[in-house]
């Protein structure tokens, strides 16, 4: 089972906090009026201060029609039930020939990667609620091998017309880099092209490598590089280059594949962090080659999805109207977007009543906006709520939070 990083982070909170909570028992306190008033005043100031410091995005940078309003997007997630999950989001397990498999990613894989059929099997699906109640759903599906990939490591399962990659669920890291190559030929499955130096955010330098063959050649000479169980390995305090590794065959997208100057290969291409000691010479050879044989390029954010912003105006059968007049300098320039609710990942917010009329939302979409037929937004697949922080005139003593509503998540 993979433990989320934040659970590990929480393990590193201050000693005094841990000790306090370990021994904490509720105390009775008297709450005189001045005391309560003081606490309220403190909290109010706290809220305003929080709002003032939040300055993630600015609406005027999104659209020239918009007023200059600072806002930030909030994604507090829901635990969705089975019927409110898209097929790509559902968890499944299956056991074939004594090997347990679990879903590798939410991305579908193309038919070109599908090999021979293994057979038709019962597979077991569950959402979080089912997991709590120890229930599961049984589905009968066709299961296939992936071309040139060991069945022991990965398989493909067909749901409707789509194929998803499933991986061996056992946590069993390879002892050497050579063993990893033997299990899965990552040299063929992953292309090393885009990389960044000492970071991967907008502040780092980004490059495109012309040809990755030389890098793979060096790595294939490091077959004896040992797997290192170094937890936590602090990549970010090292000098390194980090490739963005994706594999269409395995449905993996933008995984990390890093080489550090002090001699390590660090990657999360198979979900768990794998670390191999390839040696300083080899690592620096790769880094030098990459820097000399690449061209600098623009930063591309992890989430490249397009978004429309506005206030939920109407929820009707088949679509939702989102109006952005509230964000506009000139109210007559406001646009009402008509967003079909044909994707459960978008529709579920309205179906479950999580999002209501009047709330401010950002809708992610991957289609186009049909401006000829009433601003119909095609391919809406996600939603997040946002908060506005409006700045009053300089003469005003305080700034205020203009609109704060409940939080919903984007999946």
């Amino acid at each position: 089972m993979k433990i989320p990083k934040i659970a590990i982070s929480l393990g590193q909170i201050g000693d005094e906090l841990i000790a306090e909570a370990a021994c904490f028992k509720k105390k009775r306190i008297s709450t005189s009026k001045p005391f309560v008033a003081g606490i309220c005043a403190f909290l109010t100031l706290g809220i305003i201060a929080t709002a003032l410091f939040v300055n993630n995005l600015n609406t005027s940078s999104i659209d020239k029609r918009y007023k200059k309003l600072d806002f930030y997007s909030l994604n507090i997630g829901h635990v969705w039930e089975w019927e409110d999950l898209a097929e790509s989001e559902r968890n499944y397990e299956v056991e074939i020939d004594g090997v347990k498999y679990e879903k590798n990613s939410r991305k579908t894989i193309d038919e070109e990667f599908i090999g021979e059929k293994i057979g038709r099997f019962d597979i077991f699906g569950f959402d979080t609620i089912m997991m709590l109640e120890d229930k599961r759903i049984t589905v009968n599906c066709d299961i296939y091998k992936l071309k040139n990939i060991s069945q022991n490591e990965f398989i493909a399962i067909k749901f409707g017309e789509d194929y998803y990659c499933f991986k061996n669920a056992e946590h069993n890291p390879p002892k050497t880099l050579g063993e990893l190559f033997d299990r899965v030929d990552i040299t063929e499955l992953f292309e090393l092209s885009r990389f960044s130096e000492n970071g991967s955010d907008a502040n780092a330098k980004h490059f495109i490598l012309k040809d990755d063959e030389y890098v793979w050649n060096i790595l294939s000479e490091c077959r004896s590089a040992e797997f290192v169980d170094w937890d936590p390995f602090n990549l970010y305090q090292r000098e390194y280059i980090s490739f963005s590794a994706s594999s269409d065959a395995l449905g993996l997208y933008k995984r990390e594949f890093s080489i550090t100057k002090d001699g390590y290969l660090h990657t999360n291409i198979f979900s768990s962090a794998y670390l191999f000691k390839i040696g300083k010479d080899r690592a620096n050879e790769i880094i030098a080659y990459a820097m000399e044989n690449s061209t600098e390029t623009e930063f591309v954010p992890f989430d490249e999805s397009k978004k429309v912003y506005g206030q939920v105006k109407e929820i009707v059968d088949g679509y939702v109207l989102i109006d952005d007049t509230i964000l506009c300098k000139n109210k007559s320039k406001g646009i009402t977007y008509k967003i079909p609710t044909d994707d459960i990942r978008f529709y579920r917010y309205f179906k479950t009543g999580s999002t209501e009329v009047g709330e401010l939302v950002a809708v992610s979409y991957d289609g186009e906006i049909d401006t000829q037929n009433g601003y119909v937004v095609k391919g809406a697949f996600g939603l997040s709520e946002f908060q506005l922080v409006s700045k009053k005139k300089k003469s005003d003593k305080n700034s205020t939070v203009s609109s704060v509503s409940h939080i919903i998540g984007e999946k």
Partner: protein
Amino acid sequence: MEDKSIIKLYFERNEEAIVQTDKKYGKLCYSIAYNILNNREDSKECVNDTYNGVWNAIPPTTPFNFTAFICKITRNLSLKRLEFLTRDKRSANFVLSLEELNEILPDERYGVGVNEEDVGKLISEFLRGEKEEIRNVFIRKYYFFDSVKDIAKRFSFTESKVKTMLFNTRKKLKEFLIKEGVTI
């Protein structure tokens, strides 16, 4: 026995140190392990591993806060052990806690240059600014992995109040982490 005296026993390599540690912290360690592992045998083994870890660490380490020191070791060992357990053995409460935590800051949203330790420091900073009860409810839930029911009992709150407190704190922590720029 005072923590200082227990630590002294460790420095003297006196096995009574483990007896006294077990007497004072055995239940706490077991509850942390059990909340995570959901299995008596595994939890007992984990507590024994904890004592072994403490025995090996002291000396040379002199823990400034022995309670936190022992809690950290138990939690880390339990999480490590959990990685190798099958789904059938997992605690529903624990799994839900992890999901809730993951919604605050999913792994893939950790910004580059940001590691678990950095985020741990920020979470500490955030929690220090929270009301005592809110802070402790949050830590009991996500550090010690207590169930909502147990937290409600400990704090004399209704379960629904605990759930609301946790929801609001998660939301606020998420805002805080966004503000601090640790997410991508």
